[in-house]
């Protein structure tokens, strides 16, 4: 371990500490805002450390950096403008959109890492497993969160949407994603296979959220938020980056607990919401009664 790696590790550790302290302070309304600022401080440390370390470690070429800077500037502008101007009542759907883009970013990171290793004859399992999982989970949260945002916004009907064969298509999409994912681990790096995982997971995400009632949508957004956390952690495994693993796992676990608490506060069980969503008819009756 070089001195630079050691320093980067220490800085990542302090960023992770600030994330945990920030989340902890968010448990009480009086300290919540300060907690969010502390978490943002941790984020600043993590990002600056990564930039310095990436420049020293591999350098990269100017086109890659230009693509990153232009992309990040556009994304940051969109995020800040929307966050500042959105109506208070429309915040839940905006959070869902931010969750969607997070999942998409995680999938893109794993995809890029895979593309960078296309020339090797066989990819180590410690890399191919997290890449496959990341692309699958990230794509599900991307399309699923967009549908949930549409439901909260009212663009897509808040009623549970089902059509004949929806459940069958969903199962087929899951099986195809799983099959392509497993095959991906057995053969040399194969781009079309990863694309199959990507597309099948996108379809699965759409069909998973469409049948869920608008009243249950916030719980599903929270669940997809936890999914994104796990996708980010998988991206961390793929590119061997501790900041992503720690923050991703933290959000994955915290998001899961939060989902359970939200469902409990609504007197619903997460299982009933999801299974209802898969067409048992439970979500239809319950959310129909709620609305």
């Amino acid at each position: 371990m070089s001195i630079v790696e050691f320093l980067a590790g220490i800085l990542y550790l302090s960023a992770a500490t600030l994330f945990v302290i920030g989340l902890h302070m968010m448990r009480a309304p009086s300290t919540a805002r300060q907690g969010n600022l502390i978490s943002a401080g941790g984020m600043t440390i993590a990002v600056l450390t990564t930039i310095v370390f990436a420049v020293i470690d591999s350098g990269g070429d100017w086109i890659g950096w230009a693509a990153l800077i232009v992309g990040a500037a556009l994304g940051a502008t969109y995020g800040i403008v929307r966050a500042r101007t959105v109506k208070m009542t429309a915040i839940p759907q905006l959070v869902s959109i931010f969750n969607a883009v997070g999942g998409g970013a995680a999938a893109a990171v794993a995809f890029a890492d895979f593309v960078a290793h296309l020339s090797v004859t066989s990819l180590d399992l410690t890399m191919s497993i997290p890449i496959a999982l990341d692309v699958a989970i990230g794509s599900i949260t991307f399309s699923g969160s967009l549908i949930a945002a549409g439901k909260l916004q009212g663009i897509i009907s808040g009623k549970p949407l089902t059509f004949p064969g929806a459940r069958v298509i969903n199962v087929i999409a899951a099986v195809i994603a799983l099959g392509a994912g497993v095959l991906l681990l057995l053969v040399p790096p194969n781009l079309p296979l990863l694309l199959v995982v990507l597309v099948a997971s996108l379809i699965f995400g759409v069909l998973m959220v469409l049948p869920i009632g608008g009243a249950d949508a916030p719980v599903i957004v929270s669940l997809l938020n936890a999914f994104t956390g796990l996708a980010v952690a998988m991206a961390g495994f793929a590119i061997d980056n501790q900041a992503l693993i720690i923050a991703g796992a933290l959000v994955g676990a915290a998001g899961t607990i939060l989902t359970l608490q939200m469902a409990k506060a609504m007197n619903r069980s997460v299982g009933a919401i999801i299974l209802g969503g898969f067409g048992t008819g439970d979500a239809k009756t319950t959310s129909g009664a709620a609305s």
Partner: protein
Amino acid sequence: MIETLFGNLAIFVLSLLVGVEVISKIPSTLHTPMMSAANAIHGVVIAGAIVIASVANSPAGYVLTFTAGALAAANVFGGYVVTDRMLRMFTRPQPTAPTDVTQKDAS
């Protein structure tokens, strides 16, 4: 290779446990801000976008870097700003509430 994996797995599992502990029993008014705060934290994926920018060396790599950078930046910047906006509603009444109580007590 295997030592790196084991170290990362240990970090992963311990972070999961911390995540469970840190969020147990929060008031239901904070559910949405907490979800938004967690959403902002997974914006750390922008660090992943930076890493892939430093290794990108093909047109596909550049396009994916651009995509990851744009999506992750929207997540992290938007996430923190919108969470702060939500939480401002919680902190503002805080200073006025105690003064009201003392005024009542005084009268």
